[in-house]
């Protein structure tokens, strides 16, 4: 078959078409056949365990989530660099191994710095005594 690399992606396109039409069909069918009920203030309001919401819904959330997202991007890119290396590992020889040990060493230093800075500690700010921070890691290991 000519142009094998491109032909490989024809099924993906077909599958994407199937997935998109299946998802939209679900939405349309339930919209067409679903019961139509009237509306009332309680139905329109946000769910709050039966109470009327007292404060606006958009609330602040911890900046830690942004931090995790940023760290993810850094580490994920480094992991993606590992893939071509892993695939060609056997043909690279000793050079490839040493090179990657150095690369991973840099990765680990970065990781250690992030952990030491407390970027991955959740909950209240670091307690003076490490009772609380010791407990989760004990359970996790």
């Amino acid at each position: 078959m000519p142009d094998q690399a491109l032909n490989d992606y024809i099924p993906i396109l077909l599958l994407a078409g199937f997935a998109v039409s299946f998802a939209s069909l679900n939405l349309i069918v339930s919209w067409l056949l679903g019961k139509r009920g009237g509306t009332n203030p309680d139905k329109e309001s946000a769910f709050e365990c039966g109470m009327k919401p007292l404060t606006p819904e958009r609330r602040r959330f911890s900046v830690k989530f942004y931090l995790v997202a940023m760290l993810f991007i850094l580490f994920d890119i480094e992991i993606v660099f590992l893939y071509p290396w892993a695939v060609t590992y056997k043909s690279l020889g000793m050079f490839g191994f040493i090179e990657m040990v150095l690369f991973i060493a840099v990765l680990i230093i970065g990781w250690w710095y992030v952990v030491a800075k407390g970027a991955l500690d959740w909950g209240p700010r670091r307690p003076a005594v490490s009772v609380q921070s010791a407990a989760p890691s004990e359970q996790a290991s």
Partner: protein
Amino acid sequence: MNQDLIFYVASNLVKIIIFTHIALILAALMSLAERRVSAVMQSRLGPNRVGFGGILQPIADALKFIFKEDVVPGHVEKVLFVLAPAIALIPALLTLAVIPFGPPLEVLGREVPLVIADLDIGVLFVFAIASLGVYGIVFAGWASNSRYPMLGGVRASAQMISYELSLGLSVVGVFMVTGSLRMLDVVALQDDMWFCFTQPVGFLVFVICAFAETNRLPFDMPEAETELVAGYHTEYSSMKFAMFFMGEYTAMFVFSGLIATLFLGGWDIPFMSAETFAALGNWGALLGFASFMAKCCAFLFFYIWVRWTIPRFRFDQLMSLGWKVLLPLAIANVLATGLFNLPS
């Protein structure tokens, strides 16, 4: 040449229809099995009224979902709110593309591999598409404009991206041994020895991350019903609600398939070599397919089993497990694999 292309496209259409239906029907049965097995584990009966032993329960559920009122509350961001369930479902179906279901089948004198697309980037494609599933959950949480969905969505994003790191790293060891990302190559190389024996640490990390990526207990923080009502899909009703579950169960099936392919030998049966499969012809293909499905179903059962065995993690425990335990473990696995397979 033209005939080849027609056959190629037609066979792929048939494969797509069959494989997606297998995944969706399995997802439906999984929603029943989930309740029945849970019931058995808690000495209850579970839903057993519709059809023989409750086997038609998923169909009853689907009908009910379709005819329920599709509530779109006034306070939501309408466009994202409607799109979110579709975005959660589509990537789950797309990732099916590279899962090999069995040895090649022979149809009309042509060899048809039982995989929708045998891409040379294989696993990378799964990771790329599966991570898009996060958007569905984050959009749902954000667009709902409500307290619990918001918390669920934010948690989901942090959890899924954190575990994606270890997930991606845990398979690097496998690819150092195979030297290829192509799924069929990975299966072929496990003919003698499954990678779960040669890569035990990678296997362990991958399984744990698979639980976190599909938001299953003990890592179901995004929906944690005891604290967040229903997490990111609190405000959803009708078919939109069901689509999140279809997406989740399909993703569970895909991850079971990935585990089976990468670590449990794919369609391989112990002490049966690839030549034996080839000698059996199409029966061999069916046998391989059955073996692959058996492994998947065993893992799907394992998902339910774990759900009722291990309690839910706290969020800080979850994050420190991902970043401080699994990530270093996965890195150590890469280094160890490098040492054991030192190129001479």
